[in-house]
């Protein structure tokens, strides 16, 4: 039975963007690349003069908390602890920033983000700026206008703007990205999506069947996954209007789809007449299908290199990580430690392969990364539970994964170094995270 898909409404969500972004200051290139010692202070956005009331206070409480969390997790900055900030609220930055007081705290703060907000007739307006504490002047700013229910989105946009500006455009910030995942509902598994911090989750499939292994088209326009109809089939949906794209059904075994970086092709595992799954590449409509592994072992879990010229995948029993060219040539084994690996994911900069690995009989996986060129391996997770299914954020600095360390399967995010782990889902059973690409920027 085909899964029913709700049309939703990221379209609405993002078409709101133009009205949210109402101004931009002169853009200043601050650093050729983010400095290790860049210290950012996140001063609370304050009610604008003449604005008070519980609803605005509640919205600003959310804005300030989300912004602080976003910037802390961004991994680019040292965030100066709020307890050290000079006590005077900054409403009008031109007069309210006491540079001498800021100079006297134990950090050499490089930048401070400030802002003020008003709420009238259910329209929330937040004006934000970053001040350069060395130059003692405004560096850049934005204003956001919208429904109070969009306050989290506004904070995410501002966080991404700060990352973009302070990294001189080398990163766009991930606070506005989403994560697709599988949520178990009794015997069914449905595809859901959520904000990168676990908020705002929505069901994408509702059919009550088994839906597994979601992956995004790199431009976020589509979700590809496995759906039981009744056999596991490759299923591709538009993420923009919720329509299903035509793709052949095989009525045997098809699994682990991944859409190519240019969005024109999909690679997936498909049972061959020989009985074992090989990896096939076809156009998005299933045409021009060709077998690229052609090998009597189990081949599964393909991932494209960012250039689209290479494929990493697992092959054998148990799975070993291999790389080949997209035409199937130049097969080589990358990680030579043996054991059992799966869910390999190529980093956006092309350098790393993230994967789950364990000694063959161990019940628990850990997340590792391997240098795609040398095969050198680093372990990122350790401790309780099994840690599986890594997926890269588009900035290549963050990973999401699934773990049962809490006693149930939940989704976590962390920095590439393995630091700042955050549990972002908390109830039910949630697995197979897939981090979206960046959404379109103005």
């Amino acid at each position: 039975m085909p899964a029913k898909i709700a049309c939703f409404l990221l379209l609405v969500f993002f078409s709101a963007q133009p009205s949210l972004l109402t101004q931009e200051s002169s853009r200043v290139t601050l650093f050729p690349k983010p400095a290790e010692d860049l210290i950012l202070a996140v001063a609370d956005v304050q009610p604008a003069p003449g604005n008070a009331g519980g609803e605005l206070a509640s919205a600003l409480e959310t804005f300030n908390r989300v912004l602080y969390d976003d910037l802390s997790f961004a991994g680019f900055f040292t965030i100066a602890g709020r307890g050290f900030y000079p006590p005077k609220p900054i409403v009008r930055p031109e007069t309210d920033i006491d540079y001498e007081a800021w100079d006297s705290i134990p950090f050499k703060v490089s930048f401070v983000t400030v802002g003020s907000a008003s709420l009238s007739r259910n329209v929330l307006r937040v004006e934000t700026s970053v001040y350069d504490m060395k130059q003692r002047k405004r560096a850049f700013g934005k204003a956001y206008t919208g429904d109070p229910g969009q306050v989290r989105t506004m904070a995410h946009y501002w966080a991404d703007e700060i990352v973009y500006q302070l990294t001189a455009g080398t990163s766009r910030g991930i606070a506005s990205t989403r994560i697709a995942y599988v949520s178990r509902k009794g015997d069914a598994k449905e595809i859901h999506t959520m904000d990168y911090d676990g908020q705002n989750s929505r069901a994408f499939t509702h059919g009550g069947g088994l839906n597994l292994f979601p992956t995004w088209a790199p431009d976020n326009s589509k979700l590809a996954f496995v759906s039981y109809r009744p056999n596991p089939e490759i299923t591709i949906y538009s993420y923009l209007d919720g329509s299903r794209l035509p793709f052949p059904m095989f009525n045997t075994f098809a699994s682990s789809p991944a859409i190519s970086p240019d969005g024109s092709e999909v690679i997936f595992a498909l049972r061959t007449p020989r009985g074992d799954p090989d990896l096939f590449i076809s156009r998005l409509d299933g045409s021009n299908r060709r077998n690229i592994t052609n090998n009597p072992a189990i081949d599964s879990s393909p991932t494209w290199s960012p250039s689209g010229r290479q494929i990493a995948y697992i092959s054998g029993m148990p799975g070993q990580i291999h790389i080949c060219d997209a035409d199937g040539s130049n097969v080589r084994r990358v990680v030579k430690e043996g054991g059992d690996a799966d869910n390999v994911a190529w980093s956006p900069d092309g350098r790393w392969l993230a994967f789950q690995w364990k000694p063959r009989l161990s019940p628990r996986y850990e997340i590792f990364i391997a240098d795609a060129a040398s095969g050198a391996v680093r372990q990122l997770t350790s401790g309780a539970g099994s840690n599986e299914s890594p997926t890269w954020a588009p900035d290549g600095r963050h990973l999401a994964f699934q773990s049962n360390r809490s006693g149930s399967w939940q989704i976590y995010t962390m920095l590439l170094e393995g630091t700042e782990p955050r549990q972002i889902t908390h109830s039910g059973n949630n697995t197979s995270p897939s981090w979206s690409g960046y959404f379109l920027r103005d």
Partner: protein
Amino acid sequence: MKRSPVLLASTALLLAVMLSASGCAKKVSPDPAAVDRADGAREASTAPAPAPTITLTASPSAIEKGQSTTLSWQSTNATGVNITGGIGTVEASGSRTISPGASTTYTARATGRGGDAVAEARVTVSAPVAVTPPPSAAVSDAAFFEAAIKDVFFGLDEYSINEDARRALIANARALAERPGIRVTIEGHCDERGSEKYNLALGDRRANSARDFLISQGIDSARIDTISYGEERPFCEEQNEECWQLNRRAHFVMR
């Protein structure tokens, strides 16, 4: 989902021919007149001795080779009883369990002062009846499937057919051959220890190993579908080897 093994009532249905005692007794009466004539010269001074009687029965009277039956006899007025067929001299009344290798007529002779009496009993011995399943029409396909078709289990990280699996599949193939109307879906399942993607592929290989084996036994491939559930539909959710073994299976479902 747990399927208890059901004993297929495939043991031979022996139609016991419970013929009641079929030994026919035949009285051979001494002729008192002849005796009298023989002793006539000296007058018959004493009453003639009473004539003996005897009955002989075999129950049951028809057996399969290798089975046994009971031979019973009763006599009166006899001073000696003898039964043929290797039994010999016996008490006046009694029984013996016998297991003749072929059909045999037993003759019992009672000897007394009043003469002899003879009785016969025949035991018919047949070849063993071949084991036949119960009449097919009486059992629905669903009940037949439930009783006759067994799941097949696999080793850790394996999809090859081991000896136990082979035996089960041969039996499944025989049962499917007997009921050509039954179509099956073979589900491939795995324990939870591998990754989800790998297990989905492994489950597919397991289901197809079982399917290929049935086809090699002559089952029409069109009758067999497969579907892999990997680790998505465990039969047992505990984390121990017993449970994991239960989950490494090809599970047969009637379509």
